[in-house]
């Protein structure tokens, strides 16, 4: 309750607090909620479109990049060293430090980064698109 400095102010308070609040039309609250829902769906559809576009673009990019860099990765010395891990583990274990350095030196780092980037972009955008689609399909109950 407000503080009063005099009797007049208290009188004003008693009069004003009993003021009639003009009630808006009965559908205003519903219209507000419906408008918010509409905005939500619009933003969700824009997000979905963007994520879908990124998924498609990065997937195509991944295919192109793999075609260019894939053979470099498959035919690299690193793959052959990795196969040694399964075929002759005892030698790898004995000379693990030399093995590790050789493996690192032979990695086609740039190719791996490029391919991994496109793969990550495709997966991440697909995941975001799926999540947005799930939200997009969620319907709030709005009484009209």
């Amino acid at each position, binding site marked *: *309750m*407000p503080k009063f400095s005099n*009797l*007049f*102010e*208290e*009188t*004003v*308070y*008693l*009069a*004003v*607090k*009993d*003021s*009639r*609040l*003009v*009630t*808006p*039309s009965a559908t*205003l*609250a519903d*219209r*507000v*909620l419906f*408008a*918010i829902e509409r*905005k939500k769906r619009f933003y969700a559809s824009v997000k979905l479109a963007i994520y879908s576009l990124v998924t498609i673009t990065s997937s195509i990019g991944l295919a192109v990049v793999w075609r260019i860099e894939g053979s470099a990765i498959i035919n690299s010395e690193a793959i052959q060293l990795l196969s040694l891990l399964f075929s002759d583990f005892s030698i790898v274990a004995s000379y693990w430090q030399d093995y590790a350095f050789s493996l690192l030196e032979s990695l086609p780092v740039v190719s791996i980064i490029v391919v991994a980037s496109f793969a990550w972009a495709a997966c991440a955008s697909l995941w975001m698109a799926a999540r947005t689609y799930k939200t997009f399909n969620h319907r*709030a*109950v*709005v009484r009209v």
Partner: protein
Amino acid sequence: MNTDLDEKLVALYLAGDETALQSLVRKHTTGVYNFVAQLVGYGQNAEDVSQEAFIKAWKSLKKFDLDKKFKPWLYRIARNSAIDFLRQRKATVPLVNTYDDEEVNEADYVVDPEPLPLEQAISSETKEAIQKLVNSLPSIYSTVLKLYYLEEFSLPEIAEILNESIDTVKSKHRRALIKLRELVSEDRNLAKN
């Protein structure tokens, strides 16, 4: 009014509870409408501005500081929406607020379950007369009085809503009461009571 509930509803909505937003909107629709109507007039304009205010509030809800009170924040957005509306219409903020009984379709009475001693001595006619005089004050004064006595915002909260300093709001509150006292003095019947 339990404003802690508002902050809880906001937190619930941000956590994914859609019904919390519905509760917030339904709870504050009438208050926001009446507040906005002080600037743009009652009717369709006030409803449109109220709708716009709620949409803006919803858009900014993620940025809302849960340590602060929701209602003053909402009313500030409502005020800004009303000002934007008036700017678009190239209209000036109304200085005089008129109250038309015919526009009142329903009454939503604020009932105090524990009447103050003075309240019992004031007739309903006196109250209505004072209400009319308050409504006839310039909007800058009637708004402060209604926010303070009807909505029971504190002066710092009113300053936040109106985007003014606390001293300015205190000054407006003081001048509003002085102006109101002058109007009461001019109304001889009211002055007798």
